[in-house]
């Protein structure tokens, strides 16, 4: 490697001075405690308006029904808000919880925090799964969750000091707002000495989140090899925007030094044994399978391109000749190799890659040397390929500024791709963009959008409102054909699509649009199973997959896990199972049951795991209905994700589409014009999607309008009076 991975611009030299400017608004004492079998059995409540700080008990009902993590977040949010609550009302909350298994240091991917809030872009609950040390360190300080409500008058921080048993709300006027600098400053400010740096974790956002609705949170950890504060993002749904709206500059946790048994598990040996087995599996097979340890999720770039699944030019196309310029082998060289890259202790998958030595080209940090955390696949696909920018240095630049400004790379990538296509089609022009030439591949214009978001000026602020609001604005201003604008704006429920083509996978069209929080791939990624391997041909097969996988994956978010070590590494004999079973990676599912039992002491079967998730999943669906957005009409995808919208799209895959006309519809393509063929495809594909919805709703125990029935709520033990009350009007 040609760069020194410990060399970067420092931001923490004057932390003593910065701290002197703090004003303590509230100090509150507590008795630090470790969890017992994964739970501390209390949560921390902070009201920024009234400065009330208190602890709340975790009830047995909470543990039984909602488990932890995302479940606790949804339950607290349910109690805190009304159906009329808007994202920027003071009663909206941000809840952070690591789940009962979070913080174990043995099983790979066990350090996740789940963040829940009412989303600015969707108006329904959002949950986001993020690495970094905050959640586990908060639990080892004494709390299963942090619940924040209210709004501060000036920029404040909340400090949870688990070493001395204090919580503070402090005005903090002088530190940076932008995450890469803020996290470093607060980490050095609250660590007692050098060895203590890794016992501090910071949550921050950035200037972009102040003016955009697609704001993200950054969760930090101190990387002892790089001597750097690294960042992971709770990206989806605009929680960073809520954070800055509450005038939160940072959350800081300072915990006791971590040891391997701090969850005080019921059976530590059981957890250690299964963890070591996974480490060995990764040691032996990662290089032959996904190569996550060297390339992270960026290894997917050329694979998606090869399968025509990489979003190019706002999801118009699935591959591009220049993909090789941002492919895995570029990142293999650009990422610093040979040092641990886990975003929590014990993650031997090590996908939190860092591109050290990036010299910033633009904006307020021009000339600084920074470590860019990533790019991950989604960032590469969204900010680069989808916008036609095939340049690794510009991708690093966009990745760096998205993170530090607190902007979600996925939503930004999809929003930027949308406005670039609008520019291509004359819906936007230089006058409407304030002079920005948003042509495909214009990286400098893309960066300027980000800088405008951070400054709160120009067209960047419009882009920061997200695709759903941009569609409304462009249609209201009569910028172009409303149907075309709706068709090419890649969002459902107000959340931007993540970065996979779903046109040729009906199951994935549902995997995106039939999700609780909006189209991301946290719930289901079925493209290979469906499109490539044709393992789920019937509507019922697809519905079964869209029942099982969203529930299975929900379980990670209840317990504090990362999804990746589930199936981005597989036992070498996984193929001994029939294909549909193999897709579940049965040995790893058993691992999760074993870790659950090892920590909590509660037995868990594979079926019990799904049932545990379904309670929370159905509850979240009802929560959406309560907020006015959880029925059939809200589960419809934009046509761009279903089939070819434009002539160019059709012509680019004409052979495929013509063949489908013959085979699926019995129509001779030679007798039809391109426009007629597009219309025939649309009719066929939209009808097919409706049939999929029918099958999925039936399997999930919902009415034809997508509402969970009373029987379903009862079966899932979530027939609480306040839950039943929400669905009843729709069941008549």
């Amino acid at each position, binding site marked *: 490697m040609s760069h020194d991975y410990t060399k970067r611009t420092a931001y923490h030299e004057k932390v003593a001075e910065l701290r002197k400017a703090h004003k303590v608004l509230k100090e509150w004492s507590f008795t630090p405690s470790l969890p017992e079998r994964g739970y501390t059995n209390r949560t921390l409540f902070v009201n920024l308006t009234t400065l009330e700080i208190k602890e709340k008990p975790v009830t047995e009902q909470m543990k039984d029904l909602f488990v932890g993590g995302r479940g606790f977040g949804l339950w607290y949010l349910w109690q805190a808000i009304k159906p009329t609550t808007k994202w920027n009302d003071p009663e909206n909350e941000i809840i952070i919880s690591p789940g009962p298994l979070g913080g174990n240091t043995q099983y790979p991917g066990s350090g996740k925090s789940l963040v829940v809030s009412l989303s600015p872009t969707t108006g329904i609950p959002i949950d986001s799964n993020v690495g970094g040390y905050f959640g586990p360190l908060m639990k080892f300080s004494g709390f299963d969750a942090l619940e924040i409500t209210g709004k501060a008058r000036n920029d404040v921080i909340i400090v949870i000091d688990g070493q001395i048993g204090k919580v503070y709300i402090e005005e903090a006027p002088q530190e940076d707002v932008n995450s890469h600098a803020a996290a470093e400053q607060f980490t050095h400010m609250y660590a007692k000495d050098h060895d203590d740096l890794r016992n501090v974790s910071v949550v921050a956002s950035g200037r972009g989140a102040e003016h955009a609705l697609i704001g993200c949170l950054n969760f930090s950890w101190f990387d*002892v090899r790089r001597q750097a504060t690294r960042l992971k993002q709770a990206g989806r749904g605009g929680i960073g925007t809520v954070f800055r709206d509450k005038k939160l500059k940072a959350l800081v946790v300072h915990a006791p030094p971590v040891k391997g048994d701090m969850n005080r598990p019921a059976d530590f040996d059981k957890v250690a044994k299964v*963890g*070591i087995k996974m*480490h060995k599996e990764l*040691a032996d097979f990662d290089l032959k399978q996904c190569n996550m340890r060297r390339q992270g999720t960026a290894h997917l770039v050329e694979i998606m391109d090869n399968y025509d699944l990489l979003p190019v030019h706002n999801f118009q196309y699935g591959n591009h000749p220049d993909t090789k310029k941002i492919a895995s082998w570029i990142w293999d060289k650009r990422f610093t190799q040979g040092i*641990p890259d886990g975003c929590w202790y014990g993650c*031997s998958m090590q996908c939190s890659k860092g591109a050290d030595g990036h010299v910033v080209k633009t904006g307020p940090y021009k000339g600084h040397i920074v470590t860019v955390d990533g790019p991950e696949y989604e960032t590469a696909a969204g900010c680069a390929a989808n916008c036609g920018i095939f340049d690794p240095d510009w991708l690093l630049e966009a990745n760096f500024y998205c993170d530090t400004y607190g902007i979600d790379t996925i939503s930004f990538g999809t929003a930027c791709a949308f406005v670039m296509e609008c520019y291509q089609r004359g819906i936007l022009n230089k006058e409407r963009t304030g002079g920005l030439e948003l042509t495909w591949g214009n990286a400098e214009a893309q960066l300027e959008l980000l800088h405008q978001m951070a400054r709160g000026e120009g067209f960047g602020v419009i882009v920061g409102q997200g695709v759903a609001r941009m569609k409304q604005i462009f249609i209201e201003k009569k910028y172009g054909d409303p149907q075309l604008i709706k068709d090419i704006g890649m969002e459902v429920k107000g959340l931007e699509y993540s970065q996979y083509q779903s046109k040729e996978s009906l199951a994935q069209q549902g995997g995106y649009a039939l999700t609780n929080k909006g189209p991301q791939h946290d719930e289901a990624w079925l493209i290979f199973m469906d499109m490539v391997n044709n393992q789920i041909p019937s509507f019922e097969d697809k519905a079964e997959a869209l029942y099982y996988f969203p529930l299975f994956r929900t379980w990670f978010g209840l317990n504090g896990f990362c999804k990746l070590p589930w199936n981005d590494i597989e036992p070498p004999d996984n193929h001994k199972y029939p294909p549909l079973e193999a897709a579940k990676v049965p040995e790893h599912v058993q691992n999760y049951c074993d870790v659950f039992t090892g920590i909590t002491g509660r037995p868990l079967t594979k079926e019990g795991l799904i049932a545990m998730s379904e309670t929370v999943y159905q509850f979240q669906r009802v929560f959406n209905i309560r907020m006015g957005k959880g029925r059939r009409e809200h589960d419809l995808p934009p046509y761009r994700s279903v089939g070819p919208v434009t002539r160019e799209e059709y012509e680019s895959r004409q052979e495929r589409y013509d063949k489908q006309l013959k085979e699926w519809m019995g129509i001779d393509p030679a007798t039809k014009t391109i426009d007629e063929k597009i219309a025939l495809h649309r009719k066929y594909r939209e009808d097919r999607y409706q049939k999929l919805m029918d099958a999925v709703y039936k399997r999930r125990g919902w009415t034809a309008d997508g509402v969970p029935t009373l029987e379903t709520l009862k079966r899932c033990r979530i027939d609480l009076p306040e839950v039943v009350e929400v669905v009843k009007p729709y069941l008549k």
Partner: protein
Amino acid sequence: MRYVKADAAKCEGVRACEKICAQTFFKSEDPNLSAIRVTKKGSAYEINVCNQCGQCIAVCPVKALSRNQAGIVMVDKKTCVGCFMCIGFCPTLSMRRAPGQREPFKCVSCGQCVKKCPKGALQMVEADHAGLPA
């Protein structure tokens, strides 16, 4: 650095090495607490013990593994977070964990096993660790 070199052909399964190792470091004769392990394979024996290659050093997320002045790879239990990645990634499977133990353990080339082996299957040898991970 010095390390224990095993000649399995001379081993007759006496297991004196395991006993003295467990006794020295855990005051027990439980072979599960020994850093050196003897396994019967058919009519022969295999001996597994750390060769101080140091591959584990780079795997540790908190720098709890390092070479001491003599070049021996040591576990700093105070720093260790008990993730056991070093066990999974040891190329010779010589990093250990004992039931109930929060941190891993390994051979520190103390030489007790070499002295106790009645068959001369173990010897302490010197090697240059200059080119090995530090």
